[in-house]
């Protein structure tokens, strides 16, 4: 009576799954696109009082250097480490790495805290010349003047808290809380009609 369940393949639904088109786009128009990036996992690292020790631990587990204010670092495996606050860093890594990393974490005695929050956020990628035009309808942040490549900013999109960072010129990433995904998708699609 047990086997039936064991053979099931769990169905993973990405954050924006019900909202994107078949290619994964929320918005796809001339000079402006927004699609969901799937396959990313998120770990949240809160450093301990002994920041130096945390830095070392981070290096050991993740092979990343902790970034300075509002910036990010990337390691050779493509793990991105985002500065969120003086004692909080977000590590974006691929789903494949996740199991290994968490095994490693559990085997170490570290004083900092680590939380897996992969399912809590969806990641959107924006491309095109009109991205700032679209986002400036909902974001008070100075996208043109201050959001340079490599910069990480937590702010709001409308009333939803989001993290945005620019990985390259013309390419912007945004992390959205799962429960706000309908709201955010709604805002973006609506405004995209008028940029």
């Amino acid at each position, binding site marked *: 009576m047990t086997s039936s369940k064991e053979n099931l393949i769990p169905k993973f639904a990405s954050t924006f799954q019900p909202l994107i088109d078949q290619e994964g786009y929320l918005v796809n128009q001339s000079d402006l696109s927004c699609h969901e990036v799937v396959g990313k996992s998120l770990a949240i690292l809160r450093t301990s009082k002994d920041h130096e020790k945390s830095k070392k631990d981070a290096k050991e587990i993740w092979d990343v250097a902790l970034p300075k*204010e*509002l910036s990010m670092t990337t390691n050779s495996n493509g793990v991105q480490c985002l500065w*969120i*606050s*003086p004692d*909080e860093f977000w590590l974006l890594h691929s789903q494949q790495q996740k199991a290994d990393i968490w095994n490693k974490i559990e085997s170490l005695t570290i004083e900092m805290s680590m939380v897996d929050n992969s399912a809590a956020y969806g990641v959107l990628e924006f491309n095109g010349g009109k991205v700032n035009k679209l986002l400036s309808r909902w974001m*008070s*942040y100075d996208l043109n003047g*201050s959001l340079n490549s490599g910069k990480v*900013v*937590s*702010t*709001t999109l409308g009333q939803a*808290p989001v993290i945005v960072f620019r990985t390259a010129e013309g390419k912007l990433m945004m992390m959205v809380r799962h429960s706000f995904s309908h709201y955010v998708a709604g805002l973006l699609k609506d405004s995209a009609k008028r940029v």
Partner: protein
Amino acid sequence: MLLIHCPYCKESRDQSEFSPAGEAFIARPKSPEGISDEEWADYVFYRTNHKGNHWEQWVHTNGCRKYFLVERSTISHQILQVAPFGARNSETEL
């Protein structure tokens, strides 16, 4: 709409990212049971409510989530200075 400099993000951001969190320098009594009802009420309810330069707490709710201190004029809304939490414990301290 205020423009507030977050001492942790080291950047000025729109007020909508922040939440005000009340008058600064109201420390929780070290031993609540050891003080009178008046003293307890003073901590819980009573405020100086400065007209003029006023130290207050703000939290960067939709940013780094840190609480910090702001000295702001309650007459002109001008922000005179900001400080990370713990950098000072009273108005007069330098």
